[in-house]
């Protein structure tokens, strides 16, 4: 890997995080479906965790959460804490299970959206804001999770497209290696003398 490639992933993630928060606040939050608006930021964080691993996922979650808190003039650290957990556990899922099913991003997106919505309400409650506990809240949480699930797959595909070329274990790199080593790793290459 040359020197420039090492910076590609952080640069792409920084741009992705910035655009996510700006688009979320300036456009998506202002469109309501069944009384709730979609929130793509936990979906993007979960997608980064699934694609890049637990450590980049957690760092990305922290940065995006902090940016959200700053941009919305909220109590700093609340969204960061939630997004660290989402990014980290999405990454751990990839590292421990390496799920290959095409619908995994959908399930992870649903869990991430639910965790973010319920977690934010809980954190606000702990910070002293009146707790809106009601059936309507439950309905809104369910609708938010459904919308998040619907958006999870396209968001995952978009994030994969953006970070694809800079991931450490990118399939294209594996293909490149296969081309140069004849499909085997250097350790497995048969020696000429045998």
């Amino acid at each position, binding site marked *: 890997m040359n020197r420039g490639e090492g910076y590609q992933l952080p640069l792409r993630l920084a741009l992705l995080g910035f655009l996510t928060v700006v688009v979320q606040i300036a456009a998506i939050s202002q469109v309501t479906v069944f009384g709730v608006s979609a929130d793509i930021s936990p979906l993007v964080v979960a997608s980064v965790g699934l694609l890049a691993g637990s450590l980049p996922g*957690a760092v990305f979650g922290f940065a995006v959460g902090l940016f959200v808190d700053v941009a919305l003039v909220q109590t*700093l650290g609340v969204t960061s804490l939630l997004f660290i957990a989402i990014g980290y556990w999405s990454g751990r899922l990839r590292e421990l299970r390496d799920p290959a099913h095409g619908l995994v991003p959908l399930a992870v997106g649903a869990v991430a959206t639910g965790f973010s919505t319920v977690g934010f309400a809980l954190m606000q409650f702990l910070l002293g804001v009146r707790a809106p506990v009601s059936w309507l809240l439950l309905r809104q949480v369910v609708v938010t999770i459904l919308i998040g699930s619907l958006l999870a797959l396209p968001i995952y595909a978009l994030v994969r497209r953006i970070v694809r070329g800079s991931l450490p274990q990118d399939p294209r790199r594996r293909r490149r290696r296969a081309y140069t080593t004849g499909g085997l790793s250097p350790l497995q290459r048969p020696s000429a003398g045998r």
Partner: protein
Amino acid sequence: MYDKQVRRRRAVLALLVVVSLILLTAYFGESAGSPLHSVQRGVVAVLSPVQEGASRALKPVRDFFGWFGDTARAKKERDQLRKQRDQLLQEVAGYKVAMQNYQQLAGILGVDDSGGLRGYDQHTARVIGRSLDNLVSDRLQLDAGSGDGVRVGDPVIGDGGLVGHVSFVGSDYSFVTLVTDPSSAVSVRVLDAAGDFGLMKSSVGNPLDLLVQLLPRDASIQQGDIVVTAGSRSSALESLYPPNIPVGRVTKADPVELDADQQVHVSPLADLRHLVFAQILIGRGGSGQQRAQVGGPAVAAGGP
């Protein structure tokens, strides 16, 4: 090697969590003029033009997705408005007569009616941002700030009704806490036969269902009655809002609930979820100082 990776991963995770907790604790305990708040204001000031540009650029996309919901809502509203129009036409005739009588009597008694919006300049601003979760924090961001004369506490109206009040001001942007925010409370008057006064708050778990509380148990409030701001001008407890701004319409006035809880349900007149522009009422001849922030614990903690 593997142990080293695991240790590194856990160390970074712990570091991120600790930094978040430190930020949360420090921010929560700080006053509004403290370093973290200043940094936050600075970053938002830098971001504000970017957000405004993005908001304008993405408006067609927003409109496209909003079109589906708007069409269904518009049909329902059209039918309701037709009924209201017929009813209002009858009422207007009666009001015109009453107004003529009032003007004659006011002239005789020398009544000062310089309330309402006469003491304010109206500054129109564009909505450039909105809070992510309207259940625990219902706010929006406008593209006008202290440079335009906006101050904390200034009332905001739009789409035919009260929207909220300015709770945070930067140089070229401001945050508005909506009447549907859990921390918001507005002293209001229901335009029923007796003109009952009450305190309006958002319903827990359903921000668009406002509750007018502390009403008399025997109030004769009917569904459809209009609710306006009461606008107390007592020097001890000044209301943020001028009097007689339309706020909402009574959607449910159950005598049992009125007797037990002294409350009725109100729907806001302004379409708070689809506002594109809002008007900030900037007081004329003020002292130049910002009013004290009002609201719930989030405000006390330094948030808008």
